[in-house]
């Protein structure tokens, strides 16, 4: 994402957008982390 943004925007704008992106993702991960991970069949191969 960081390199994607830097290829399309001025560096200072790309940095700001990247920070916003990571903060939003962190927040969503924190918000939804209460959901239990059911595990996965490929871990049992």
């Amino acid at each position, binding site marked *: 994402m960081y390199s994607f943004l830097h290829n399309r925007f001025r560096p200072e704008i790309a940095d700001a957008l990247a920070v916003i992106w990571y903060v939003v993702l962190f927040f969503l991960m924190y918000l939804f982390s209460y959901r239990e991970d059911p595990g*996965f069949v490929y871990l049992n191969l």
Partner: protein
Amino acid sequence: MMKFLDADLQIWLLIGIFSAWLPPARLQVYFITLIGMAFLGYFDLFSLQILCSTAMLAYWICNYRQPHGKQVAITLSLFAVIFSYFKIQQGSEIEKIVIPLGLSYYLFRQTHYILEMYKGTLRPHNFIEYFSYLFLLPTIVVGPIHRFPAFLSDLRRRRWDWARFSLGLERAFHGYAKLIIIANFALGYFLRDYFVQTADIAGFSKAAFLNSAYMWIDLYIRFSAYSDIAIGVSAMMGFTIIENFNNPFMSENISEFWKRWHISLTSWCSDYFYKPVAAITRRPFVATSGTMLIIGLWHGFSLHYILWGMYHALGIALQQRWSSFRQKLASWDNHFLTKIESGANIVLTFCFVAACFPVTTWLQQNIEELLKGAYHVFFSA
């Protein structure tokens, strides 16, 4: 079952990253190997024993002297027996045993190593370099099935690189986000009720199809998230690992789908089964059927996965016939119509893939009932 968001797994991944950089440069390879071994021993001691013994056997066969064809064949047969034994036991309804952690991945890595050594394509290396390849911590549990030459090249050239480290960190972060936000929350909470209307996936009903479509999407999101984490953490340790997915659900036909889904496994099967068999038999359908059968059996030794492999092989054969026929027809001059055709192909390919579980489960149930009936007629008193 092991879970990827467990705290102890995250701690092990952190230890793996530190072990790759903190020790003096000449000791790093030893630390990478030892931490990988400790990790596997911590979660599954039996798996560690199997991996160590098969790895020592493979190294000895390939390096003691020039590998001989008969020795290679015996070793690979032994691997096949170990693999089959656990897979059959895993699928058995009488006595279920837990398959050693990561067995399917590391046996395929070792087979690749033996075959490449036999062909003489690998650069000279030592025992610890080979072991560090097998015990690279992020890839032990869920792949990808990466290749030894690329690993060896990275191992010898790796230097601390902030850019590579930050790219790896970002990749792993996106993997965790995909797992928590999309797989566990969006798919597991919102979409599940819409897709999964019945526990039964056999048959030709809309419910069975939606259930199967949900399974494929869930499988893709979770597996690609795990691959992102493995590839990201490996990059943080200084290794570039082969990609496992390339937007498979955007494929325009089933052949393309299998080039974009679980790439490390399909490229392994292509290199070590499809190409040799196609070269010997000159019959692409035989090679395709065998390859899809191996991919099916890799997932599980059962009638269901045999049918699963045959379903995809048949799909590939039919699609290749259609493609050669389509090439003879005039292509669309209109850009819009070309886009429409591409979109229709993408939807059809997804429908074919999603219909796989209902069709093969239905076939399996019917064949089993037929066999039971035949047994009853011929053998019951």
